[in-house]
């Protein structure tokens, strides 16, 4: 491996060959150990007893119920966050107001809150011991240890990602096109749906992609509100934990393999989107 410097770089920026080779070698070793090896191990353990054992584990009724619930929770949480994220990004990126920085900070808050704390706050609100718990129980509505709580916890944890994907792209594009649309008589909806969102399409896709990956993979927050009821309130990550605790390694890693696949597809799409966004930014000057 020859440590050639980036194209267009100058001789003064070139590191001595052995140094560059050593740095590249270390980087590849670290990435191999920490990022590639876990993926390999998941695949290896999932297929340790062959493809039939993997298929049987994935087709297990409890596994299927977990897959269904994971898809359902994501199918609710992602559109909710899409709606909120677009509204937040549009307000923050295209308008200037006092408290803009505060709104941005609040939007990012769920990233720094522990998922366990995120789950707990909903237990404190809606649980049997919670503020609204008795009122809800009287009306026969179950939020905690049921699907609504899992959706709420998932929405909380994945709130920032759509806005985070949109804001940089929307800011970069400025407001000239929106102003032109308004001059031509477009209202708010038309401007948003015909100008701002299509222009920021890649950023939107990027945000939805990350939201979906995090929603399907969320563990801590959902674990706290779910109550771990098999076949009822078990998502795929929770099912991995249950099978792992039962020493059913093939079962645990088979479900884990599906989730790892989701992560790899997400990364591939993300890399593709980033390349397209970079190209478009380059064209835009």
């Amino acid at each position, binding site marked *: 491996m020859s440590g050639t410097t980036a194209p267009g770089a100058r001789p003064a920026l070139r590191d001595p060959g052995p140094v560059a080779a050593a740095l590249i070698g270390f980087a590849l070793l670290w990435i191999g150990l920490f990022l590639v090896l876990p993926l390999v191990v998941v695949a290896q353990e999932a297929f340790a007893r062959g493809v039939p054992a993997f298929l049987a584990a994935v087709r297990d009724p409890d596994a299927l119920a977990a897959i269904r619930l994971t898809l359902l929770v994501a199918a609710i949480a992602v559109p909710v966050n899409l709606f909120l994220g677009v509204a937040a990004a549009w307000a923050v990126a295209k308008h200037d107001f006092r408290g803009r920085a505060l709104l941005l900070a609040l939007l990012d808050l*769920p990233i720094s809150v522990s998922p366990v704390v995120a789950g707990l706050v909903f237990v404190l609100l809606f649980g049997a011991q919670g503020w609204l718990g008795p009122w809800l129980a009287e009306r026969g509505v179950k939020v905690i240890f049921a699907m609504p709580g899992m959706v709420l916890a998932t929405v909380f944890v994945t709130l920032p990602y759509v806005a985070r994907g949109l804001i940089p792209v929307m800011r970069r594009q400025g407001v000239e096109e929106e102003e032109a649309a308004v001059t031509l008589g477009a209202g708010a909806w038309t401007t948003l749906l015909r100008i701002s969102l299509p222009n920021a399409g890649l950023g939107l896709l990027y945000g939805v992609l990350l939201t979906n990956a995090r929603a399907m993979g969320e563990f801590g927050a959902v674990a706290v509100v779910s109550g771990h009821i098999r076949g009822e309130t078990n998502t795929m990550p929770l099912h991995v934990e249950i099978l792992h605790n039962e020493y059913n390694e093939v079962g645990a890693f088979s479900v884990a393999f599906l989730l790892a696949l989701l992560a790899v597809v997400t990364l591939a799409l993300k890399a593709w989107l980033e390349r397209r966004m970079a190209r478009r930014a380059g064209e835009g000057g």
Partner: protein
Amino acid sequence: MSASVTARAFRFRRPSAVPGFAPAFGVAATGITLLVLVPLAALAFRAAGQSWAEFAAAAFSPRALAAYRLSFGASALAALVNLVVGLLLAWVLVRYRFPGRRLADALIDLPFALPTAVAGVALTAICAPDGLAGRFAAGFGIKLAFTPTGVFVALLFIGLPYVVRTVQPVLADLEPELEEAAALLGASRWRAVTRVVLPALAPAAAAGLALAFARAVGEYGSVIFIAGNMPMVSEIAPLLIVVQLEEYDYGAATAIAAVMLAASLLLLAIGAVLQRRLEREEAR
């Protein structure tokens, strides 16, 4: 809704020709208030409703203090290692061209995208006494899985992308003239890198460090499988909250969660200050 209406309704807004501020801001502010602020405020109120003795007994019990020590200590250590490794990875990915670079670059985000439970079981399998790394470490008399070292390994994994991703764009935009000038003035390559490049990367690296630390402190999924979860030894603070909840001790869970929330708010504030300094530096 027309722009004139929004201008009257929200006087704190700077006038702009783009319509739709009021509904967009309204939806975003309502959503964030209901989904984030009210629930977090509920936690703060519940904690504040406890007597000080009750709160302190749970939040500062020997077991809780041991859990904080492990969570914050292992997170700090992992974030520092990730700072050094992250700078190095960013340097390699930005400055060198080699086969597999794009794949390596895409893989950096794996800890973001991989569900934490999957990372947990995979790292446990690798670090267990019969796993690849576990056997290797055992040769040196080190036990990886089911010890505090296991916590550290899991936090190394989940904190890996942050410094790389904050430093990468700054390094890519760094003007080559700076290093050329240093070389022309007779600085060695090492001196040019440590005196010219590293200081320019410092704000971005610090922002990444704060993010990696904040994420690690609250991390749950990837840690609990590998940690062994022995009270006083390898039990992280988020797990202790779950343990208290499973024992229906909502008061204790609330008290510990309030401490963790206060810590993450503090870290968020530090991160915001660093971020602002970074943006100011970029604007210059």
